[in-house]
Every structure is written in C-alpha cells, then in structure tokens.
C-alpha cells in the first residue's frame, strides 16, 4: 500500500498525523481518500500541493499512477518568475 508523508504545513490539517498508508492507484484516488480522512485538507489538496512520488516531483498530475510500494510526499506548490 502506498506510504504517504505530510511535510510540515500539511500536518496542520491532519491533526498532526505525519504519515500513513493509503490504498490508491493514482494521485486523484489518493486525494479522494485523504479528503475523506481529513476534511480540512480536502478543499486545498488539488490547488495547494504537488506530490513527490518516490522522490520525483509531480505538479497538477491527478492521473499520475502510484505503485503499491511507493512513498508519496505532499509538497506545497512552487512557482517561478
């Protein structure tokens, strides 16, 4: 089952849960599950975060597959000049 880690700021919305395993085959499924578990996180997941899946950064990639043994980190979005 993919292992999800919340970095600093995200934990505010998870009641300080730092990590957990979530059954999800892609980012959208992951967000749905996380949104159910953490209602405060739900409205901001898609616009506020990118995910690092096994160290690789994915922005706006809801359909990105997640392997069962993957480590997924929620990262606040970064934009440039």
């Amino acid at each position, binding site marked *: 089952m993919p292992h999800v880690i919340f970095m600093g700021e995200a934990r505010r919305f998870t009641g300080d849960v730092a990590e957990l395993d979530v059954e999800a085959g892609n980012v959208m499924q992951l967000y749905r599950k996380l949104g159910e578990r953490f209602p405060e996180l739900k409205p*901001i997941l898609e*616009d506020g975060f990118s995910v690092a899946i096994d160290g*690789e*950064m994915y922005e706006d990639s809801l359909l990105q597959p997640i392997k069962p043994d993957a480590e997924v980190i929620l*990262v606040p979005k*970064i934009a440039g*000049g």
Partner: protein
Amino acid sequence: MPDDVKSADIKEFKYVGKRNPRPDGVDKVTGRAKYGADLLLPGMLYGRVLRSPHAHAKIISIDASEALKLAGVKAVVTRDDFKDLPKAQPPFGPMIHDAADVTRNIIAREKALYDGHAVAAVAATSEAIAKKALKLIKVEYEVLPHVIDPVDAMKDDAPILHEDQFTVGVEPKPSKPSNVFRVMKAEKGDVEKGFAEADIIIDREFKTAAVHQGYIEPHACVANASEDGSAELWCSTQGQFNFRAVCATVLGMPVGKLKVTSSEIGGGFGGKLPVYGEPLAIRLSQKAHRPVKMVMTRDEVFRSTGPTSGSHVRIKIGAKNDGRIVAAEGVLTYQAGAFKGAGLAAAIGCMFSEYDLENIRIVGYDVCVNRPKVAAYRAPGVPMAAFGVEGVINEIATKLSIDPVDIRLKNAAKQGTVNVSGIKYGPIGFIQMLEAVKAHPHYNAPLGKNQGRGFAAGYWMHAGGMSCATLNVQDDGTVNLLEGNPDIGGSRASMAAMVAEELGIPYDKVRVTIADTASLGFTLFTAGSRVTYATGMAVVEAARNAIKVCCDRAAAAWGVTPDQVKWEEGHAKPASANVGDFAPMSLSELAKKAPMMGGPIAGHAEINATGQGPAIGAHLVDVETDPETGFVKLLRYTVFQDVGCAISPDYVEGQMQGGAVQGLGWALNEEYVYNAKGQLQNAGFLDYRMPVASDVPMIDTVMIEEPNPNHPYGVRGVGETPIVPPQAAVINAVENSVGLRLSELPMSPPKLLKAIEDGRLKKAAE
C-alpha cells in the same frame, strides 16, 4: 566566439547545442518587432490610471463627473465597474490567485493599500486629455496609519490592512485579525539533536530590501471590446493564457470570448505574471466602444507593480569541526505587500536544497504591509534566504579554516539526496561543478590591496506544467511551429533547434510563432525556468508526431508496416536492409505529395510536463573596496551552473550573465526608499540604481552539463538559478576585502562605510 558546447553524455547534434542565430533576431535589431506599446489601432483611445498618493486610506467617495465632462474623455472606470468576487478557498501555494485580492489590487475598493494603488481609470482621445481628466476626478480619502516593514507589521499595535485576515497556520486559531497571512513550516529529521551534536553553531540575522524586476519595457496593452461581448487584448505578458483566465474572471466574461495575444515582451523576470491595467483597459473599451491603449509610466511601474519581498531572515547552522553540517534552521519573515502571497514556499523548498542535510527546520511568515503586492522575481523568494544560508556557511568555513568550496563539497547534494520537500534527486552536477570551480584559474588568481574574493552557491527547482505545440509542415517542406510561451530570452531559437534536430531539416526551415489564446491549447506562463524544459518537451513530441505521420505514409507507399520505416536525417528510410530497397523519402517530398497521400502533415502535443529537476549554480566574484567611501568596484565574475543540456548555449550563458548582474544590483544598490508617509521616494531609474554597463565586468560562464534524464535532450531550466548566489557571493567578497561580517542588503556605500568605521572603532576599543 567560444567553441560550440558539446554535451558529454549526449550524441553529437546538428542544431541542438549550437550557436544558431535567433529566428526573431532581425526583427529585434531593426525595430520591426512589436512590443506592448507598439500596436496602433484606428480610433484608438488612450487610457490613464489615477493612483492613490496615500499608503493606507479609506476611500469615502469617488466623483468622476467633472472628468466625464471634459471634451475628449470617453469613459471612466472605478471600483463600481468591477464585481466583488468571493475569496478563494484558503490558498496554499505561492502563486495565490484569490479573486477577491485580484479585484482589489487592479482597482482599490474599500481602501487604498499602498502609494500607487489604482483608484480610477479614464480613456480619452489623447494622452494629454486623459492626464488632465485624472486631475478632475475627486477622491475623498480618510488617511489611515500605515506600516512598511514586515517586523513592524507583526507587532500587536500595527495598523491592520485586512480586517478579515486571520493568520493561517497557528494554533489555537487567532481571534484577532493580523497582517500575518500565514505561518509556513517545513521540517526534516531532528534539528535539536543535530545542534546538540554540533562543534560550532552560527546564528545570524539578515535583512534585505525590496527590489524591483526592473524590466525596461513598462506594462502596456491595447484592448478592443466588441458589442457582442467578445474582446481582444494585445499585451506584454509572460503568459497570454493565464492573463485570459484572470481577466475573464475579473470581468465576468466567458473565457472563450476573450482572445489574448502576447506582444513581444520587453523583459518580465516574474513581474509580468500578474495583471494590472489589462482588465481596466478592457472595461474602458467596453464602455467607450473603441480600442483603448494603456501604457504605464516608469513611475507607475515602480509604484504599482512588482517588486519582490524585502525580508528579515534568521539562519542558524551547526557543523562538526570537519565542516559537516549537522543541523540547519531558518526563520523567514517576508513582505507580501498589500495582499498575501510572498514567495515563501519556493524559499523553503530551495534554501538548503543544494546540500545533503539530515536535519532541517524552516518557519516562514507571509506578512502584509502597505507596499505594492509582491510579484515573482526570478527564483522568487529564494535569494533572500540563500543570502543568509550562504553567508553563514561562509562564516563557518572561515571559523573552521576550511576552504569555502571544500565545505560545500563536504555537504553537497548528490544523486539520491532527499531535500526538505521530500524530493529525491536524480543525477545532478553539483560536485562536478564545485570541482570545476576549484580548477578554474579565477579561483586562485592573486588579489591586490583592498580586494576580496567571494563564493556562494544556489539552488532552484525549475518548473514543468502544461504546454501545447502544433507543428504544421507546409507543401515545400518548411515548417511552422506554434507554441504558447512569450519569447523573453531567445526561446524561439531553442524550439527551432529541437524541431530541426528531430525532423532532420535545416534550422532556417523552421519558423516559430507564439500563438494567441485562440490558436493553441493552454500553455502555462513563461516562468519558473519552464519553457525550454516543458514547452521543449511538447515541441519535441509534436515533431515526433509529425514524423509518425510521415513514416506511416512512407510505409503505406512502400507496402510495409510502419515499424519497418525509420526517420533519419530528414528522410523516411527502410528500417533495415531486409525491409526492401526503397528510395528514402524526404520531408519535402512527403510534404509536396501530401495532398495526394492523405492530406496535410501536422504534429500536435498537449502535455503536462513533470520530472523537472534541480538546477544548481555557483558564483565566484572579486571586488575592490574603497575604504574611504564604501564604494565597491566589481573586478571579476565567473558563473558556474549545471544546465543539463544547453540547447542554445548563447542564451543559456545570457541567462547566467543577466541573472548574475541582477543579483549584483540587489546586493549593492537597489532598494525601495519610503518616506515617513509611506510614499515611494525613488520611483525611477535615476534613483532606483540598477547596474549600468560601466558598473560590471565581463561575466564569464562555465556550463556543466549533467543531463536531466526526464527531458529528451537533458534540459534543466536555467533562468532562475543565476540570481540566487550573487548576493551572498559579492557580500562575501566585500567581507573578505574589509575583514568584516556584513548582513544587510543592499550594502550601499553609506552602509558599508559605516560598517567599516564601526569595525575600526571596535578594533581600536579591543
């Protein structure tokens, strides 16, 4: 000219990596290229904006009746012409698009929040009449106390900009409104444990001034609205598609009814990501039923657009005696300007990220003050934090008598390093780069009296995101490429090189056009060093899709299967001798026969690029300080950067050089100066002192090419990184020239002279 650059790990290319002339070069050296202010339409009106002279004031009333009576005035807009849009959900990322904020920033509603805040706009038959009309608009203000510095803005008794803003990210939830929009945190490992193990701990505070992007072309647009509800907007923008989205939202227009065309753009550096006058111009055009041109003056550019955040930064780093860093902590207090959204996320994600560190903790404060809303500026948010980080690392190196490059080698990120955001690096060239610095003749060149050498590194994670490309093969075999990113620094040349390389046709047979919003799918801004990476990927994919059409047609012609045909040197050829003896078919032949072989040949790509990688740089600088005046002369400068693969080495070097010189201005002289009333005192190029040609030396460049495996040619975004190291590098050089530690930007002559004299007094006292 330098030799052509070769990628170490990539095969020899014909156009990629070569110094090809840029396709838009002739237009730009002859004055033919059309920028924002260069469009003239029949019947065009001129728009001007009335701006608040107060830093903070309630707007009691606005009366434009006298202005409307002036002959030649055709329309006036105020806050009443724009709907108040609901606030967005608690925004999170750095590019906060809170529609309520956007409507208030383009034109003040309840309050004017900074000197220069737009209050009304007029359209008239001449500039002069428009200017005169502004003086006839009566605005009644109730002036409120203001606050300019973020630390002051955090105090309990500070004037509050937004009564409905309660700090996000603190427990328990605050009951009082605050200028602090949010507190952001990031953490990795165990910082306390790390500091406990440290042999040396340096804890310093740093301060940087707000600085402007300083593009030479003021914001400019021409709007032309039709009675059928549609409108066209021509403007200088870093992203026509984003402008379309924001303008349509603010104006309540269906997105598809607004067509935005990006003019040539005279620089942006992040400052042409937000909309300012564009929605006002469209509304004026709707009301006046004529085209409206709106061009900012330089004064308006300084007072109302950009800049980037000024900052207070605290950095604490602990290291072992051998230079190994065991804990790193940062507290970032950034000005957001009048509306939330300082570049904290990027700062947090990048500030320690070129190092392989176990224990990191970062806290950031996003603070509203009575200044223009900050805009992105090249690696937004990162240079201020990096100034502190690199300064402390240099101090640790000095204290431990370790060479500044060696201490970085000891801590350098490498393949497999995981940064504070959880990003695990693929191959990166930082160690290779640091070795190159040590081997460079600049590194050990002798220094004279009052001279010093400085060194610093910097990190940027370049962006990916949505890009589209359409490639049409014409009947003579020439190619038209449509892509969606305004070309600010020569990106057309890179796109043409990649297309020519893929198709195997001469570079000059590819013509690149920047599409308007009606002609191509959504393409994200020219920003975040994403264009050659992300749009480059789209362009390559579009070319490969066109090749597939060609190969399919050759296969059909030869009666073989498509996989039996390969594309090589601009021809469809049998994949092997076994396929049969068929004469290769060139792109031009296929193009000529296209009408009889299935129709036009084209390739498309609509992608959302991911897989971007770190882009790391390191700068080396020599200075000579005049100890009697505090004047710093720049003697020598070398930029090292891991560029992945330099598609257009000329323009990659250009990014490295331009970013470095912007950083030098930031380090030495550029700053926003306010008076006691919160009015900007230096809203012009004379007193906002950007570097001029005689201020700087040649900027030497060393490109390290460790290809990014996620891009077909190994590209890493290169534009942002070069503005991250210069501030720390040049201040480090000044420190070494005068034997002092310095912590404030800009280190302008009055400040430096004072530091020198204070240092002298301190020494005398000891």
